[in-house]
């Protein structure tokens, strides 16, 4: 479970998040939609305990960040716009590095397992600077999952992936959902990976403009609601 309570954030004199509260139960897959600059990435970074809100509080599984910094981070995996990967190191070395930061048990097997999941086994010992944009994105997915996190945050994860990569990521997401992981995904697309999503959160101008389940949502409804909410 993730809970954000009265989260606000300003950059300079810009109110990027205005008093956002939300609660995402364990095992739920939530998609966050919203126009550019709405504050989606900022919200994600705050919920993932990467950056601090100016006011408000984040709780993960009833534990507050204030009390339990390091241990909470162990439960979180994040896929951001940046890859967090070291170009001089190989795919294997990058995953081993992050795996060690999280004290992953049986790291060797875990590395092989996640690298297979993203279809990069053949590139395992290639240095990352030789990777294409799509390969980088796949390796970033592997990196985000190396420590089998309970909660996964994804910021526009489909960007840069080819058709094959897209269906691979959809499979990964399906997998995560079926193993009861909590997922929060910022996305621009109304189609990719939508069938597994339980709930939609629309963010506009730093506030929650809409929050509804995908149950009973007819095709076309989402687009209509989105433009209604974002235009107003």
């Amino acid at each position, binding site marked *: 479970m993730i809970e954000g309570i009265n989260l606000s954030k300003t950059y300079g004199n810009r109110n990027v998040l205005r008093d956002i509260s939300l609660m995402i139960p364990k095992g739920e897959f939530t998609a966050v939609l919203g126009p550019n600059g709405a504050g989606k990435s900022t919200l994600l970074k705050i919920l993932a305990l990467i*950056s601090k809100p100016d006011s408000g509080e984040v709780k993960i599984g009833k534990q507050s960040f204030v009390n339990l910094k390091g*241990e909470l981070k162990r439960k979180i995996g994040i896929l951001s716009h940046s890859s*967090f*990967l*070291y170009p001089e190191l190989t795919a294997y070395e990058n995953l081993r590095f992050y795996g060690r930061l999280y004290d992953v048990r049986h790291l060797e097997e875990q590395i092989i397992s996640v690298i297979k999941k993203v279809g990069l086994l053949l590139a395992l010992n290639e240095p990352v600077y030789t990777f294409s944009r799509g390969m980088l994105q796949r390796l970033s997915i592997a990196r985000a999952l190396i420590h089998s996190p309970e909660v996964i945050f994804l910021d526009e994860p489909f960007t840069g992936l080819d058709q094959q990569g897209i269906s691979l990521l959809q499979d990964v997401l399906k997998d995560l959902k079926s193993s009861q992981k909590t997922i929060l995904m910022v996305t621009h697309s109304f189609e990719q990976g939508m069938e597994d999503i339980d709930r939609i959160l629309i963010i506009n101008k730093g506030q929650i403009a809409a929050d509804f389940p995908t149950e009973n949502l007819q095709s076309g409804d989402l687009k209509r609601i989105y433009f209604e909410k974002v235009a107003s």
Partner: protein
Amino acid sequence: MGRALALITTIIKKDLVSELRAKESVVTMVTFSVLILVLFSMAFEPSRETVREILPGLIWMSLIFSGILGLNRTYARERFNDCLIGILSSPIAPYHIYIGKAASSLVQLFIVEIITFPLYFVFYDLEIDGSLGILLLTMLLGSVGFILVGTFLAALTSSLRSKEALLPVILFPLLVPVLLASIEATSAIFAGLTLNQYLPWLKLILVYDLVFLVVPLLLFDYLMEVD
């Protein structure tokens, strides 16, 4: 404790392997130090007496300038692809990142020292009257102090604009105590003074090292906050 050590080692190894592949920092640092050393010896054709007087300052200044090149590099590498955010989103304590990065920078500085130090004997006809062992200890302690404060401040400046130019500007005033003490102790050892005569300088370096081992323990969390 064991876990902390394992995390620190993980950071050090990662840094050194990256450096070994890219060979940017150490090569630049060594080139720079050797260049200074050779150019000075040609510019001054120093006699043995003047050498004794200027050499300690020259050795330390060239170490510090080349060290700054390395310090800027080590954080530039973390900023690329936002790797530092990746590290900070893991459970590692920021202080362990600090110690790890300081240690890997120190190893690189030692490599520079091991390569350049013998060259001073060649180019300057250097003779040491004091104990070589204590000289090496002084080099060690002084380098530790410099790298600790440098790693601390590089973390601060690396998030600012015009970071590379800013580091030396902020670093030098803070370096004065350890730099002065290291130069004084080195001079004394070159001249063969007794340990008692320069022990206060060594103690000053040691205190400085301890301060910059402890202060970041309190402050590094704030320095590493992500916006």
